[in-house]
């Protein structure tokens, strides 16, 4: 099993304050690190869930892989090829192997184009001429279970579920190897979110796709991912096989996340609150282990020393001085 995607020490910074303002306000560090020292791997045919809350950097990470945000340092290898540092024109070719599904299905479709126009656009962009575009458009619609009547529709005429399917169809046009999905079930009712997830599952079987799914929805990701990576304030705090991460979380944050999910059973109410406080601002990162400000198990060492990733049995990794496992 080869590594389809290998990310090493990735760092993505954003400038928060303009040049002049920084001078005027005497801001010493006008940057924030949205993604800090992230290393992870994705194998072919695998689904990796990237989980975190606001400010965790998970969406930024996904966008960095597709080249939509500039990378400060680190490396991203796709099938052995380094993506960091590529020029925009070189990246364009790579984008054929990468598909991206965006969070808002209707907003991610250009409002003035018909579904047919949207589906054949990837072929135009990459100048693929020797295909029957109409046939391709129909084929793609068929794969996602929409009938030909939708070819003439506009994005705003579609329901959320239909728009998502069109989004999936679009990413499949150029037969990518890896699809990054940003909150694939956001805005979908519980009774229909299975449709898109089952479709993604089916496509994985059929086409040997790999997925990187970015989400904060734990109950969903538990079912659809093989491995999980938990992010907090731009860092990876834990990763490992989904089953074991859920069953026995190693990092206190993971445990808090799992405990925070309300269970649809009135006999399983929780009376105590696992996690107090709010996520610290990216501008003022806590010292040492950045989670120590909210961690119930925090000790002196955690406040001063940042933990390094430690390997745990079962293909797991955690960034904590006192892992729970």
């Amino acid at each position, binding site marked *: 099993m080869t590594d389809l995607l290998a990310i090493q020490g990735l760092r993505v910074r954003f400038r928060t304050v303009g040049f002049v303002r920084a001078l005027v306000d005497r801001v010493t560090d006008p940057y924030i690190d949205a993604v800090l020292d992230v290393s992870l791997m994705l194998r072919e045919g695998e689904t990796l869930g990237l989980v975190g809350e606001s400010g965790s950097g998970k969406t930024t990470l996904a*966008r960095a892989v*597709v080249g*939509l945000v500039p990378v400060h340092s680190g490396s991203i290898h796709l099938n052995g090829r380094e993506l960091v540092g590529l020029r*925009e024109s070189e*990246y*364009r*070719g790579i*984008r*054929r192997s*990468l598909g*991206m599904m*965006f*969070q*808002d299905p209707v*907003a*991610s*479709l*250009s*409002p*003035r*184009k018909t579904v047919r126009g949207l589906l054949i*656009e*990837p072929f*135009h*962009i*990459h100048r693929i001429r020797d295909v029957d575009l109409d046939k391709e458009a129909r084929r793609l619609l068929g*794969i*996602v*279970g*929409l*009938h030909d*009547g*939708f070819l*003439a*529709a*506009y*994005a*705003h*005429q*579609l*329901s959320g*579920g*239909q728009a998502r399917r069109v*989004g999936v169809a*679009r990413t499949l046009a150029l037969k990518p190897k890896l699809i990054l999905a940003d909150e694939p079930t956001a805005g979908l009712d519980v009774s*229909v979110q299975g*449709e898109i997830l*089952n*479709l993604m*599952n*089916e496509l994985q079987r059929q086409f040997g796709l790999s997925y990187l799914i970015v989400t904060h929805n734990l109950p969903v990701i538990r079912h659809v991912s093989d491995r999980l990576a938990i992010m907090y304030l731009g860092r990876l705090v834990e990763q490992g096989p989904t089953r074991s991460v859920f069953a026995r979380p190693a990092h206190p944050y993971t445990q808090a996340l799992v405990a925070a999910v309300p269970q649809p059973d009135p006999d399983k109410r929780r009376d105590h609150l696992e996690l107090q406080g709010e996520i610290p601002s990216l501008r003022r990162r806590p010292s040492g282990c950045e989670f120590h400000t909210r961690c119930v198990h925090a000790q002196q060492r955690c406040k001063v020393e940042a933990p390094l990733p430690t390997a745990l049995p079962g293909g797991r990794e955690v960034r904590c001085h006192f892992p729970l496992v």
Partner: protein
Amino acid sequence: MTAQTVSGGAAGPLPKQRAWLVLSHRLLKDPLGVLGLVIVALLVLSAIFADLLATHDPFQMAPRQRLQDPSAAHWLGTDQLGRDVYSRVIYGGRIALWVSLVAVGLSLLGGLVLGMLAGYGPRWLDNTLVLIFDAVRSFPTIMFALAMVTLLSPSLGTIIIIIVVASIPVYGRIVRIQTLSMKETEFILAERALGAGPIRVLFSHILPNVIGPLLILASMEIPVVITIEAGLSFLGLGVRPPTPTWGSILQEGYQYIRDTPWLVIAGGLPLILTTLGFTFLGEALRDAFDPKLNRP
């Protein structure tokens, strides 16, 4: 195959013809909109068919029949040189429409291109263009007009240049703002993720979404341009005689107002009607396009 559980969608997508029908239905329901449409249509038709509609040659002078009241022969009377006022008004309409369409068209084009460049391009380009826009806008239009007229001598071409230079920053600003806000929307990101380059993004995606409100704005600008031309002509800065524009007819009429009121009426009334007509139509179009007005 699991993908066969298709959510058909309650109403299904609306075919393109149906959308147009809904739009025109809404437009026609607004009485002012219909009135505007009629007036604009009349203007356009009279401009196209001026040769057929005019009764006399607008340049033909007949000094012995000067300043006559409306009659069977001269529907709006004659001016100080004996020329048929009605025919001059008709040809004036053609000129008004032509000038405004060219001026607005060029401004639109210029504003669109520069605005998209400013919004989508690098920061320094944006800053430079905005600086230029603001500089031009802060310059008093009348003085600019005076300067241009002095430099280039009065003519329709000069008027067009004046209007285009003064209007491009206005459209440019609007397009820039729209482009800036659209740059970060999900669908633009999605296009970039697919590999689309900046040209495709700008022309295939940003432009179609920006042009709608811009066109409606432009259509409301047409009467403004016509009025500006009239104003400049009235001030003597506009076209040289004997070209028949509504503004020059007004100006001449003003000089001879003690002899006959008809020249002023002939020059002024078309201006008023045109402005009203385009305004009503533009407002009605704007309302008809707005999908959020959930009226039946």
